[in-house]
């Protein structure tokens, strides 16, 4: 049984088809990476699952059709972290993380003790409890990303949608964030769907890949199936070699051919 299954998903933006009959599935507690060149429709796919763009086709979580759910019920199942989240500069980390409890509150309800405990727990998990009282504007890039993840975790979702979670981080913080997400996935059973540009990272962290091109699924399956030199060359118009790291994951290395020798 799939935690998340997407069937025949199509999305038009401004009357232009952006996704066409996309199918994808992730097992419960799995990690699905959406890869593909810029403009392939990765972000649109995430936004459709989050309920932020109108779509055709069905999206189910444990057989429950998300199309039938209202915003709040959907937000209790799915947390969405955009590529560049809006961080109100003067809000404290603690206040920000508490916003994650929104879908669990009634219309006129206020966050109670349980909500605060959940938010504090999310801060502990992501090791940001130390600076819970700091303003968001004062955080570094890595700290910000962890604050955003803590907010998503406070939402207590079954599915975590991440749009380019590492795009603004250095390589060390990229690994740190991906490890944190993987840790949440394993310890809390959260299903992760993330768009990733770094194909090596996609292979190292995700069990399933979906390669999108021009709104269509070009390839899907485990990293060994999807990450081949021919496919990457065709879809990305890139020259790469695909090797294997000590952990058995695919390593995609860009290759530059030597420039032509200067004429004598």
């Amino acid at each position: 049984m799939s935690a998340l299954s997407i069937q025949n998903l199509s999305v038009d933006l401004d009357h232009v088809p952006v996704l066409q009959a996309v199918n994808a599935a992730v097992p419960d507690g799995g990690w699905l990476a959406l890869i593909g060149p810029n403009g392939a429709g990765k972000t649109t796919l995430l936004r459709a699952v989050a309920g932020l763009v109108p779509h055709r086709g069905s999206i189910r979580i444990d057989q429950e059709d998300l199309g039938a759910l209202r915003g709040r019920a959907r937000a209790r199942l799915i947390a969405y972290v955009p590529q560049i989240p809006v961080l109100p500069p003067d809000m404290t980390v603690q206040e920000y993380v508490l916003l994650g409890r929104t879908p669990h509150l009634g219309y006129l309800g206020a966050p109670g003790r349980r909500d605060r405990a959940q938010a504090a727990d999310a801060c502990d998990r992501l090791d940001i409890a130390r600076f819970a009282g700091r303003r968001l504007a004062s955080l570094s890039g890595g700290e910000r990303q962890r604050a955003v993840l803590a907010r998503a975790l406070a939402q207590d979702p079954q599915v975590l949608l991440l749009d380019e979670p590492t795009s603004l981080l250095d390589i060390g913080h990229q690994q740190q964030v991906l490890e944190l997400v993987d840790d949440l996935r394993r310890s809390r059973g959260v299903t992760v769907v993330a768009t990733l540009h770094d194909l090596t990272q996609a292979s190292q962290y995700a069990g399933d890949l979906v390669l999108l091109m021009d709104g269509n699924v070009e390839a899907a399956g485990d990293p060994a199936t999807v990450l081949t030199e021919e496919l990457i060359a065709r879809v990305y118009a890139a020259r790469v070699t695909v090797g294997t790291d000590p952990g058995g994951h695919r390593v995609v290395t860009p290759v530059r051919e030597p420039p032509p020798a200067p004429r004598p």
Partner: protein
Amino acid sequence: MIRARGRRLPAARAYGVAAAFLVAATLVSALVGAADLNPVATIAALLDKIPLVHLTSGLSQLDRAVLFDIRLPRITVALMVGALLSVAGAGYQGVFRNPLVDSGMLGASAGAGLGATLAIVYLGSAGTAAVPVAAFAGSLVGVTIAYLSGAVGGSGTATLLLAGVAVGLFLTAVQTYVMQRSAQDLQQIYSWLLGSLSGATWSQAAEILPYAAVSVAIVLLHGRHLDVLSVGDEEARALGLNPRRVRLIVVAACALAAASAVAVSGLIGFVGIVVPHVVRRLAGPSYRLVLPLSLLTGAGFLVLADTLARTVVAPAELPIGVVTALVGSPVFIGILRSTAAART
């Protein structure tokens, strides 16, 4: 438990400061004026009005009339107007995620101005009585037109603000035309446009009380929603909030609050911007605190401003809109400077 650090006041202390400011402003205003009231006797007379408290004030019959029939109604109306303008300003700022939005934006002030002008010019002697109703209706009509035209242009808040500016300019142009055609009414129109509480009565306070209570209650109940809106429409939706619905409800309530204030006071600018700003500097950006603290602080601020308006050039009066701007803007700039220095 984790607590906000930095220069922010804890919530309880912020409430204490705001309430103390409100009480102090009210007392000063009750004691200051053309008639010299004995401070101790005045306070005793005020306390005597509290249920279960019985005090003999020793105020003369005349002094009692000054206090209860002239000063207190005016103070009460000032408290209400200040609270309404500040809560409406803060609410709009939350809806538009823009700290520079005022309660008079979105065509509210322009609509009220046009309504009042039409009443004064075309209703003749009956006009004076009709001005509050005309201003109230004009303000609401202005916001409605702005909201509808903004909604046609798209879902963004920027569109709505721009529509408000356009509608405001249009209504002001109509008003200017009407004024220019009726020079004999200019004095009366201007004195209304600049704002005054000199005609405040108990019945005015009672008339706007239902609108004030309902609108303020609705805005206060949406503080948490405005906090969620501060992460943007898209993320707010991903958190299960309906930004359009929240925006519509809060804008409607703020428009009603501002219209109630305008009906009894004329146009008083600046309060809706400066008060929420001061509050935010002291207590942080969460609307769950900013809204109620703006209510208390705004009420006190306007009572003080009105006290200045009626005493500085006594026996004449300054328009209160002039006072709020003259006093408010230097204070405002000072606050911006001092907190900027503390932050860097």
